[in-house]
C-alpha cells in the first residue's frame, strides 16, 4: 500500500520534469523552426503521459479507489486529461503548435496539484459509487477537451498578429480549418460535459435522493454548458464563425476553471470535497 503511494510520488515529479522538458521543446520548435524538435517534444510529452498514467494507476491501487476524489487527485487528473486530448489533436491534425500553448496550461494544473494535500483520506460512503467514477472520468475528458478549445481559441486570436508568416502559415492551419478543429474540440468537450452532468445527476439521485439541487458546482457546470451551447449557436447564427467563436471558447474555459477551482474556493456546497 504505502509503497505504491511512494512510487506515485516519485513518478509525479518525474512527470512534471518531462512536461517541463516538452514545453521547452515546443518553445524551441517555435524559436528555431525545426520540425524535428516538435516531434521530439511530442515524444517527451507522450512519455510524460504514459508515466502520468502509471502514477495515477499507482495511486488508484495504493488508495484502493479511483484517484479522483480530492483537489490534488482531480488537479493531476485534469492535467492528464489535457495532456491526453492535446496529444490526440496534435497527432490527428499534425499541429504541434498546440503543444506550445497546451504545455504551460498542463504545467499550471500539475503545479496546482503539487500545492495540494496528497493525503489519502477515507471516503464517505456516498462517494463509493461507480456512477461517481463515470462522473469524474468523463469530467476529466471534458475539461481536457475544453482546455484544447481554449488553446485553439488563443491560437486563432493570435494567428494574424504573429510575424514570420512563412512559419505560421506552414504550421497553423488556415482560419476556416482552425475554427473547425476548435469546433471539434468543443464538440468532444460538450458531449463529455453532458455525460458528466447526467452521470452526476444519476449518482446524486441515488445517494441523496435529489438529482439536481442547484449546488454551486452543479450550477457552474450548467453555466459552462450554456456558454458552450451559446458557442455552437453563435457559430451557426449568421455564420459567426472565427473570432466570436474563438472568444467564446476562451470564455468557456474560464468558466471551466472557475467551476473547478473557483467554486471550491469562493462558494460553499456539497461538492466541497473535490
Amino acid at each position, binding site marked *: 500500500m504505502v509503497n505504491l503511494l511512494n512510487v506515485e510520488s516519485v513518478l509525479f515529479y518525474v512527470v512534471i520534469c518531462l512536461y517541463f522538458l516538452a514545453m521547452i521543446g515546443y518553445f524551441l520548435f517555435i524559436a528555431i523552426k525545426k520540425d524535428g524538435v516538435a516531434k521530439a517534444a511530442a515524444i517527451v510529452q507522450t512519455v510524460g503521459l504514459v508515466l502520468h498514467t502509471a502514477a495515477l494507476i499507482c495511486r488508484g491501487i495504493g488508495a484502493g479507489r479511483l484517484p479522483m476524489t480530492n483537489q490534488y487527485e482531480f488537479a493531476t487528473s485534469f492535467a492528464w486529461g489535457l495532456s491526453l486530448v492535446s496529444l490526440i489533436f496534435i497527432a490527428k491534425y499534425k499541429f504541434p503548435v498546440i503543444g506550445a500553448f497546451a504545455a504551460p496550461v498542463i504545467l499550471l494544473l500539475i503545479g496546482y496539484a503539487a500545492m495540494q494535500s496528497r493525503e489519502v483520506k477515507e471516503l464517505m460512503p456516498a462517494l463509493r459509487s461507480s456512477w461517481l467514477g463515470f462522473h469524474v472520468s468523463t469530467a476529466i475528458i471534458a475539461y481536457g477537451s475544453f482546455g484544447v478549445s481554449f488553446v485553439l481559441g488563443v491560437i486563432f486570436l493570435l494567428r494574424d498578429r504573429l510575424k514570420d508568416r512563412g512559419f505560421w502559415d506552414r504550421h497553423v492551419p488556415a482560419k476556416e480549418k482552425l475554427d473547425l478543429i476548435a469546433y471539434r474540440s468543443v464538440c468532444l468537450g460538450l458531449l463529455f460535459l*453532458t455525460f458528466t452532468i447526467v452521470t452526476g445527476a444519476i449518482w446524486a439521485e*441515488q445517494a441523496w435522493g435529489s438529482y439536481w439541487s442547484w449546488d454551486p458546482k452543479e450550477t457552474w457546470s450548467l453555466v459552462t454548458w450554456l456558454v458552450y451551447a*451559446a458557442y455552437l449557436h453563435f457559430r451557426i447564427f449568421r455564420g459567426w464563425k472565427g473570432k466570436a467563436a474563438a472568444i467564446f471558447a476562451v470564455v468557456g474555459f474560464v468558466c471551466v476553471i472557475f467551476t473547478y477551482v473557483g467554486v471550491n474556493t469562493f462558494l460553499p456546497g456539497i461538492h466541497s470535497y473535490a
Partner: protein
Amino acid sequence: MRKIWKFLSSMQFALILLVILAAACAGGSFIPQGLSLEQYAAQYSERGAGLILGLGLDDVFHAWWFLLLTAFLCGNLLLCNLVRLPQLVKRTKAAADPAKRGAPAVSVEGVRDPDALFARLRMPKPAETRDAEGRPLRFSVRNRIGLWGAWVCHLGILLLILGFALGQMTKEEYTVYGVPGQIKQIGETDYFVQIHDFRVDRNEDGFAEQYTAGLTVIDNADENDPLAEDAVASVNHPGSAFGFKLYQNSLGDAAKLSLRRDGEIVQESWVCAGDSVPILETPLSLRLQSVLWEEAEGERLPTGYAYMIYVGEELYTMNVQGEGETIPDFQPYEVQLSEAQSYTLLQVKRDRFTPLAFLGGIVTMLGLLLAFYLQTKKLWAIQNEDGTWTVHGSSPKAGALFADRVREEAEQLKQEK
C-alpha cells in the same frame, strides 16, 4: 403578430435566452440563497438587501423571472423544433437525391478508380446514374441521420426541463429516522416505515463504509387491511416501495431511555442524538447529544452518553452518563441511557417524473452524438470525356476538414496505383 411569432422561434432569441440564463445562474451562485432581509443587510447594504429580495435574488432558481425565462426557452425550443420538422424531412430526403448535390467543398480531378476512393473514405457503395448532361455519375451519402442531431438534442432538453419542472411541482419529500423495532409514519401520509434492522459496516479504523437498513413500508389507508412491501436501503442503493424511494441519508447515535420509580420501569423509549424527551410530569426534558465509543479489539463499545437537560427552552445542565450509571437530576425518577446503537435517517421521496427527466438527459446525449459524430457527408464522381473522373465532396459541418481528407486519400490512391 407574425413578426413576434418569428422572433419567439428564432435562434437570435435562443441566444439571448442562453446568455441571460447563464448569467442568472452565475449570479445565483454568488449571492447566498435563502437568507433573511437582516442577513442580507448585514452582508450588503440596506438598499442592496431590499433589491435582492425585491428581485427574488434570494431564491434565483425559483424566482418568477427565472421561471419565465425557462418557459420562454421551452417555448422557443418547441417552436423551433416544430417549424424545422418538415424542413428536416425535406432536407433528409434531398440529401439522398443525386440530382440535388449542391455546391462541392472539394473537387479532385483525374481520378481513375472512383469506387476505390469511395471505399477509402468509408462511403456507402455509390448509386450509378447520370447527371443532367448525361455524363455517368456515382453518388453516395453518409450519415444522413446526423442532420437530426440538433433536433433530437432540443427534444431531449425539452423533456428534461419538463420532467424536472413537473417533478418540482408534484414531488413529495419526507424524512424518517429511527432504530430497529420502531414504526414511523411517513410525514402525514397513510404510510408507515417499520425498521427491522440497521447494519453499519466499518473498516479497521472504525470508519463507516456502508450502512444498510432493512425496512417494511406499510400502507395503512385501510386500517383493517394494511398492505406491506419490503425494502432495503443502503447508501447509493435506495430501496423502493409503493412508489416511494427510500434513501439512506445518514446515521447517528441513539440510546434507550428508561425511567424507573422505586426500581420499577415506568417508561421506556428510544432517543436519537439531537432529540429531546420530556420527562413525565417534571418541567425538564433530556436531550441526547452523542454516544461516546471506545474501540477495543475490533469491537466498538459504548462508554458513555453525553446529554443536556433543559428547563423549558433553557439549558439547565450538561454532563456524561457512564455505561450502567444513572442520571440523578430527575427525582423521584431514576433515569438511564443504555443499549447504544445507531439510528438510520432515511429520505423518503416520491417523484414520478424523475424517469422523464432522465429520459430527456439520455435523448440530449443521443442528439449530441448524432450532431457531432455522425456528420453528413456527400461524395460524387462525374466521368469526363477522357474516361477519368472528377470527384466532388461536401459536408455541411466538416467542410474544410472533409475536403482535406478527400484530397489526401485521392493523392494516396494515385501514388499506390
